[in-house]
């Protein structure tokens, strides 16, 4: 049977504040274990939380950018459950009055625009990290706790069950990530866990209004696992339903290595979080004027930037979309263009050579060894005719590894294009003399033969001869 897939996403993102949500400890990732801690985030007896105002500001920013309503009165609540990475055995979060509600985000999938509604955004504290003594939890006889992450501020962004496919889920997640990056409120590094995602998935026969029974999938730690995890879960549920079975409401975890989801706990085993209003914090009262001010000062967001790239530089919607899907790439583009780079050429290089190299090394553009200035200098050499496009790729390769400027490499390696006609004529004539058969073939009407002759000329000049001149001079002499 053909089912409609219904997905809602819960996105957790760590906010890039300098200090934690309820104390002054650093949020720095990768510090030595248990060094970014104090009595407050360790939950020692008698200590009290104090809200980091920056967290509220970032939450409002995200809320406004995701078209939410910012509640003028919101509050924190305690979510009670026992786990050794949670020093107080409750997480301070927001329950019935979150900071932002009723938002939406438009995404594009297969050329169509679709609106995903956002239920709510709330602020909460992150938990610590367990370090097990063995390779797996079950093979460990003890665990240690690193509390550095305890109290790092998180936003949880909860969507309505409006997502209908794994592709839509991925597109939505990518767009939320892009917006958070543009807002400069989160690093959104899935590999460091600063962006995490849970998916609620259910199926129902097309046309049925009531939702099917859902499973919640946790541990989706990359864009790829979001897509794969959802795809797997959809097939799993389809098979159950096709066999006349019933999907069980439960929490499942995605196993990236095995490529499957596995049951974590059933509905019966689900936690009763026993929420209660956090008595140690006062309610958050947000003045509408403050929201208006934040709204007025929002940075340019991905959609607006994409439109600008199309309008100002004549980029295609597709190209502009790819470049603006990451703030860092778009910044790189803008810096290159500001440096007198031709927008379309820069775009081609970004999506071509630059992206190819980044992907093969598995790094982001922030770690790109070639700066926007260096790239535009390289492009200027092509423009001036100093080097050909082909040579430019070789030079780029060299720039990537040596970090030298293009001009230096071109000089050192003698890669300057030969545009001196007498020099080219000499080579052309020697190649003609050495390849009488090809010359005869050409004259007999075999156009392909000229390609061989050009190739020979380029070989002799190590690709440095100006290709246009080679073509003209060769044809003149044949």
């Amino acid at each position, binding site marked *: 049977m053909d089912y409609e897939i219904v997905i809602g996403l819960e996105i957790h993102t760590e906010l890039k504040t300098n200090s934690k949500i309820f104390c002054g400890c650093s949020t720095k990732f990768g510090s030595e274990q248990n060094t970014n801690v104090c*009595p407050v985030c*360790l*939950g*020692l*007896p*008698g*200590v*009290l*939380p*104090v*809200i980091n105002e920056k967290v509220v500001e970032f939450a409002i920013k995200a809320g406004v950018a995701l078209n939410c309503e910012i509640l003028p009165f919101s509050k924190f609540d*305690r979510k*009670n459950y*026992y786990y*050794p990475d949670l*020093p*107080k*055995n*409750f997480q301070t979060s927001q329950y019935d009055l979150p900071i932002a509600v009723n938002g939406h985000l438009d995404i594009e999938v297969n050329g169509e625009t679709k609106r995903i509604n956002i239920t709510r955004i709330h602020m909460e504290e992150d938990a610590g990290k367990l370090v097990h003594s063995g390779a797996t939890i079950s093979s460990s006889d003890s665990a240690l*706790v690193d*509390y550095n992450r305890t109290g790092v501020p998180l936003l949880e962004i909860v969507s309505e069950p409006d997502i209908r496919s794994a592709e839509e889920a991925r597109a939505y997640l990518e767009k939320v990530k892009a917006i958070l990056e543009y807002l400069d409120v989160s690093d959104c590094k899935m590999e460091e866990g600063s962006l995490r995602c849970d998916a609620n998935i259910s199926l129902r026969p097309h046309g049925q209004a009531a939702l099917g029974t859902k499973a919640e999938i946790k541990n989706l730690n990359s864009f790829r696992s979001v897509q794969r995890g959802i795809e797997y879960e959809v097939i799993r549920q389809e098979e159950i339903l096709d066999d006349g079975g019933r999907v069980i409401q439960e929490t499942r975890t995605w196993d990236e290595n095995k490529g499957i989801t596995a049951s974590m706990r059933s509905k019966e085993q689900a936690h*009763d979080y*026993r*929420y*209660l209003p956090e*008595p*140690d*914090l*006062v309610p958050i009262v947000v003045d509408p004027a403050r929201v208006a001010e934040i709204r007025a000062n929002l940075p340019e967001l991905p959609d607006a930037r994409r439109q600008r790239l199309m309008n100002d530089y004549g980029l295609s919607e597709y190209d502009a979309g790819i470049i603006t899907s990451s703030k860092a790439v778009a910044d790189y583009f803008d810096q290159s263009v500001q440096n007198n780079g031709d927008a379309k050429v820069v775009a081609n290089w970004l999506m071509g050579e630059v992206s190819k190299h980044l992907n093969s090394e598995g790094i982001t553009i922030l770690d790109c060894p070639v700066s926007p200035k260096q790239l535009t200098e390289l492009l200027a050499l092509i423009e001036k005719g100093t080097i050909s496009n082909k040579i430019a790729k070789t030079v780029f390769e060299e720039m990537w590894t040596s970090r030298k400027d293009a001009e230096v490499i071109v000089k050192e390696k003698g890669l300057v294009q030969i545009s001196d006609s007498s020099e080219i004529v000499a080579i052309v004539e020697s190649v003609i003399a050495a390849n009488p058969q090809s010359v005869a073939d050409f004259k007999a009407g075999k156009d392909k033969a000229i390609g061989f002759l050009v190739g020979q000329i380029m070989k002799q000049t190590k690709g440095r001869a100006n290709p246009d001149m080679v073509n003209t001079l060769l044809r003149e002499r044949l």
Partner: protein
Amino acid sequence: MELFKHTASQLHEKLVAKEISAVELTKAVLGRIDAVDKDVQAYITRTSETALAQAQAVDSKIQRGEKVSVLAGIPGALKDNICTKGIKTTCASKILATFVPPYDATVAEKLAAEDAVILGKANMDEFAMGGSTENSGFFPTHNPWNLETVPGGSSGGSAAAVAAGEAIWALGSDTGGSIRQPAAYCGVVGLKPTYGRVSRYGLVAYASSLDQIGPITRDVTDSAHVMNIISGYDAKDSTSINTGVPDYTKSLVNNIKGLKIGLPKEYFVAGMDAEVERAINKAIEQLVALGAEYKEISMPHTEYALSAYYMIAPAEASSNLARYDGVSFGHRVEGNDIIEMYKKTRSEAFGAEVKRRIMLGTYALSSGYYDAYYLKALKVRTLVKQDFDKAFEQVDVLITPTAPTTAFKLGEKTNDPLAMYLQDVCTIPVNLSGVPAISIPCGFAAGMPIGMQIIGKPLGEETIIRAAYTFEQNNDYHKGFATLGEV
């Protein structure tokens, strides 16, 4: 008269006049502790050495002619749920028996800044849950007026220490009456400030929305002095009130002409001791004779306050006490897995009353019961608060007994939690509404002190101090000293 029988303000005069030294005073009180604490058992931890060093430092200041504050060199005690850097803070619980905080509570910092001498940490009901100090995880404290009776609780160690001359002043904490009720039982003065007037930073939480630190002293004057030191906004406590602190000693005025006093009839509950009722009525007559205007008023939701409290406080406690799990600090009993470790640790190290309240609170917050219990209790809390708002439209202060009876015998109510809870019936509504109240001695029944509670408007500490001071100045009840069976 022995030095330990004086008040802080009297001793301050002697110190600055160089009649006595702070070391001499501290030694006198330490000597008193040595002599009587085996009977009273007010202290869990004693810090005699640091106390003498603190006293020595004050003497040096006085010698150098420096101005010292009124508590400088005056030895006092802190309830053992107030965190003290480098000094064990146990909450009278086995689970924290060896816990040494790496930080000071804000009140401890403020007292240190004023050069107060700290003698040690006073006994209490475990995690401040109780009204007799019999729930201490270590040992019960005895009432200095009659060692066979309880000192009240949960700040029983603090009140008994002050009453027995084992401390000149003390700090307690009050969640449902835990400063006022032991002050009443021990014949001393106990003040619960407006919620938020004193920082809770470093006070080990029992029920965060109700807890408040306050002074236990020999007289109202000392209460005002201690309040001057400990009150005020604290950036570390989001619930502390950000308004200026008045000089409370300016309210030590023997004049209540025109003060409107109200007697809420609902506070004279069934089971109230006739002697207590008589003492309160007599006190009201006296206040009227001193110029107060009396009015009987009604606070119709009073009878529900106790039930609401025993939902809200345990609910918060169940969450506040979840951190005592044996993972990163405190007592731990090993288990085969983490769940077994939690269970063994908490089963072994928490006392019966703490477990009872954790269970009550967990239940009240559980899905399916939340609306019927916790949420309903919050609604009752609002109604109780409105009762106070309405009452204070008519009167300036409310007068009630602090507790329905005088101190009861040890063991008398330990098997009857409800009877024990009823001892807080007059004090609990005050915490639910967040207003300030003071308990002062107003008579004796069969040789045991009776306490009168004066309740004020939010931030109305000045008014209750003035009323209390006026009553005190026209009576001698506070001058009696617990005999400890001595002749």
